[in-house]
């Protein structure tokens, strides 16, 4: 292999220098800090993120709502939203382990939101969608050139909302509204309660709950993002950051110069890139097998392969 981590210009282990922000962030606060910096510098004039019901109640016009009855929207349901300030970014920080269709706002961002320079965070597949929209803008008029910063987050898989509900409420035996944070790391699914309790579930339980579309996904570390980041490879509270494109390089360079992040060489931290590479390989190998299986799925009938 060797291509499992995609092209990148540099890779470090990093953490935001904003201690307040870190309290709300999932890992090293890379996404939130980088967008906050880019907003302040005018590199972006808004960012598409995964917000939640509380945010939507406060800023309904900033969200892409579905047809659910608002009062019935559950805790931990992501709501794609466009944010314009650091406070709004922080309100949307943290990982929601279920689907947030962030790309659904990409066109609207340039329309009723009036953005000229869009920031967007998303999973590797969402970064793929963004790049396809730029290169093959079939239904994405005047969008491509407005994408100013695409931050990708590493992703092994994602879950439908109902899966998270069952994992937390059945397996971890906690109410979703009393959950403070969820995390996957060190081979476990971790659920942290607001009252301080911690439940860990072995990852093998989570497999049946995964979104099937993830099983053909061949990108672990958001190869097509400007900057991609995830927890894997870096110590707790730190993030692994890969700077990939010219845009990414320029923004990251400026943010570093402005003192937004403290860093350590990725070679110096444990477990380092080796683990990232290992996990990337595992994901890609497993999902390539799925694709092969799909080719001979029926009797003389294949399931579709989106890559050919």
């Amino acid at each position, binding site marked *: 292999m060797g291509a499992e981590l*995609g*092209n990148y210009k540099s890779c470090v282990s990093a953490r935001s220098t904003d201690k307040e922000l870190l309290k709300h962030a999932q890992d090293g606060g890379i996404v939130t800090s980088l967008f906050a910096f880019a907003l302040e510098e005018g590199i972006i004039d808004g960012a598409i993120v995964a917000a939640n019901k509380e945010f939507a109640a406060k800023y309904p016009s900033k969200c*892409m709502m*579905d*047809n*659910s009855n608002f009062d019935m929207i559950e805790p931990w*349901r*992501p709501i*794609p939203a466009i944010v314009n300030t650091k406070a709004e970014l922080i309100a949307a920080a943290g990982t929601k382990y*279920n*689907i*947030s*269709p*962030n*790309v*659904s*706002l*990409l*066109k*609207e961002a340039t329309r009723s939101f009036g953005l000229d320079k869009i920031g967007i965070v*998303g*999973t590797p*597949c*969402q970064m*793929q*969608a963004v*790049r*396809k*929209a*730029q*290169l*093959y*803008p*079939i*239904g*994405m*008029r*005047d*969008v*491509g*050139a407005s994408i100013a910063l695409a931050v990708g987050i590493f992703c092994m898989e*994602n879950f*439908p*909302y*109902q899966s998270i509900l069952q994992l937390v409420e059945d397996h971890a035996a906690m109410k979703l509204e009393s959950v403070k944070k969820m995390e996957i790391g060190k081979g476990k699914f971790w659920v942290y309660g607001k009252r301080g309790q911690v439940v860990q579930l072995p990852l093998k339980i989570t497999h049946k709950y995964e*979104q*099937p*579309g*993830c099983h*053909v*996904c*061949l990108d672990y570390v958001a*190869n*097509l993002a400007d900057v991609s980041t995830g927890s894997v490879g870096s110590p707790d509270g730190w993030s692994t950051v890969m700077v990939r*494109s*010219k845009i990414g390089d320029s923004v990251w360079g400026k943010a570093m110069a402005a003192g937004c992040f403290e860093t350590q060489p990725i070679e110096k931290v444990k477990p380092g890139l080796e683990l990232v590479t290992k996990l990337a390989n595992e994901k890609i190998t497993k999902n390539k097998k799925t694709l092969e299986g799909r080719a001979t799925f029926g009797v003389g009938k294949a*399931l*579709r392969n*989106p*890559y050919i």
Partner: protein
Amino acid sequence: MADKITVGYTHLSGCTGCTVALADNYAGLLTLLDKYVDLKYMPTLADARHIQQVDVSFVEGSVCINDKLAVEEIKETREKSAIVVALGGCACYGNITRFSRGGQQNQPAHEAYLPIGDLIKVDVYIPGCAPTPQMIRNVAVMAYLLLKGTKEQKDLATAFLTPLMKLAAAGTSACFCELMTNVINQGLCMGCGTCAAACPVNAITMEYGKPQGERDLCIKCGACYSQCPRSFFNTDVISQYEAINEAIMAALQ
């Protein structure tokens, strides 16, 4: 002139929105015409009245098979063009003309409309309603590279155009159903929301992270499916997005 590709534009039963989309390359349109494209035939924008022999023909609109002239024009377009590009939902998939059923004055017998691919072989599809200026621009630049470029550029252009050629080969019918049958039912949807953004009539909403199609709104333009990263994703080309975008922008300077 010799360096340019010759281009024609056949207008059938379309609304001219596709033409406007082409013109919406703004200053880029002028550059395209200066450097790459010799527009031989396009009655809306130029004076030529008859279909000419060209390298590339863009066709807007579907064909009313009850109208002799329209049928002749699509056949003549095929005969006189090396490459035929179906531009827009109407030419590719019928779009709103799929709903036509005749009975209106002053030609009540104009009732049957077909996407051009049902009458001629089509090489490249640009779906969407309206199609986008940037997609038209990208295909025009790639067609130029394909016909006039170096070996390397030809390879790139071929790779770029391949999925659009496959769309053309795949058929003449599209609507929200394609997302259901070819993406969701195939276990491929991952909830990115691209389809909802692509739809020109807000027919798609994302419910619990998955697309819901309001089929009474869908106009059958094909944008959602072809924009979906799980309809086609040619990693080899898309992962060069930075270089290709830069090359296209440089070409239009």
